[in-house]
């Protein structure tokens, strides 16, 4: 591409009932979507609201909807997603829009809490260090889910979240799955109880949109399937 090429970028402006505004941004080599948004704010409209922090795919704060698909914008190259020099950038789906590209992620983290996403210690600092076999089936299952950066992309990609406002969503359920598999956790049945039912893992329809879009290549669909299995086992044994 030449330096003279210009991108036509539609960016969402306003709140829930906002609309798209078109900007023209010079196209550069190795340019990311976040670079485009930053250019617009620095050079064209300082009022544009968006969120980012680390710029290197660690913090999970810059996720947006690019051409209808949720993406981490700091690690998404324009050359991979622009079609005929056009881009559409909108806030993440399934969360209230505050303004422009910024969503209110409160419900996302609130559901994390409702899924009991926090570790319940079974020992104190005075006990010896727990020894966990890294090759055990449970630890392997937990390891597969622990790289989540809470970017909200899976939550925005999920249609079940859109259809069922109470649904905990892939990220919170994936987190619960890592704790259910953590032998040091003191309340694994409590985690299972929190994710059972219509707001939890049993609402999942295996669309696999979460796994398809997860930038960290995690597989929440598999985690949720694991929760379905464990909750059914627990219920059949009368323990749920």
């Amino acid at each position, binding site marked *: 591409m030449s330096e003279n090429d210009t991108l036509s970028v539609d960016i*969402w402006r306003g709140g829930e*009932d*906002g*609309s*798209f505004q078109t900007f023209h941004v010079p196209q550069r080599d190795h340019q990311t979507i976040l670079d485009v948004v930053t250019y617009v704010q620095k050079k064209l409209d300082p009022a544009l609201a968006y969120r980012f922090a680390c710029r290197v795919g660690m913090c999970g704060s810059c996720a947006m*909807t690019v*051409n*209808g*698909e*949720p993406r981490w914008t700091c690690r998404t190259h324009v050359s991979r997603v622009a079609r005929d020099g056009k881009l*559409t950038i*909108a*806030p993440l*789906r399934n969360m209230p829009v505050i303004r422009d590209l910024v969503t209110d992620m409160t419900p996302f983290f609130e559901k994390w809490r409702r899924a009991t996403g926090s570790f319940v210690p079974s020992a104190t600092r005075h006990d010896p260090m727990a020894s966990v076999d890294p090759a055990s089936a449970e630890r392997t299952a937990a390891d597969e889910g622990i790289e989540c950066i809470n970017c909200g992309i899976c939550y925005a*990609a999920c*249609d079940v979240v859109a259809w069922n406002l109470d649904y905990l969503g892939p990220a919170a359920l994936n987190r619960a799955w890592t704790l259910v598999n953590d032998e040091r956790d003191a309340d694994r049945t409590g985690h299972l109880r929190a994710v059972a039912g219509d707001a939890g893992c049993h609402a999942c*329809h*295996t*669309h*696999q*949109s979460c796994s*398809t*879009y997860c930038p960290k290549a995690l*597989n929440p*669909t*598999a985690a949720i*399937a*694991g929760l*379905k*299995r464990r909750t059914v086992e627990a219920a059949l044994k009368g323990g749920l």
Partner: protein
Amino acid sequence: MKPPVATRGHPAYWAFVLHRISGVGLAVFLPLHFYVLAMAVDEAARLDRFLAWTENPLVKLAEAGLVILLAAHLAGGLRLLAVEFLPWRDRQKDYIALGGGFAVVAGLFFLLGAF
């Protein structure tokens, strides 16, 4: 206005759509199916008149559609049971394609017998 959504164009989502359409279709068909079969004893003549009507090629085609729906719901359901109750496998796309193929083959077998 609403921002566009483009997250539904992948095989597992198509599998879901097919499973939902076939499920609802079969649920609607089921009461009719039972109702017609219940005629067999008391109203055999009426059942035979109905079965004669089903010889119509268009009805046969519609029946082939039902066979495909049933086979698709079976194959899709088996895949979901495997996802939910067996260890995860990465080759979901292959299983989805296999299920679709099974449904089409079932429909073709039906048509071969019907005509």
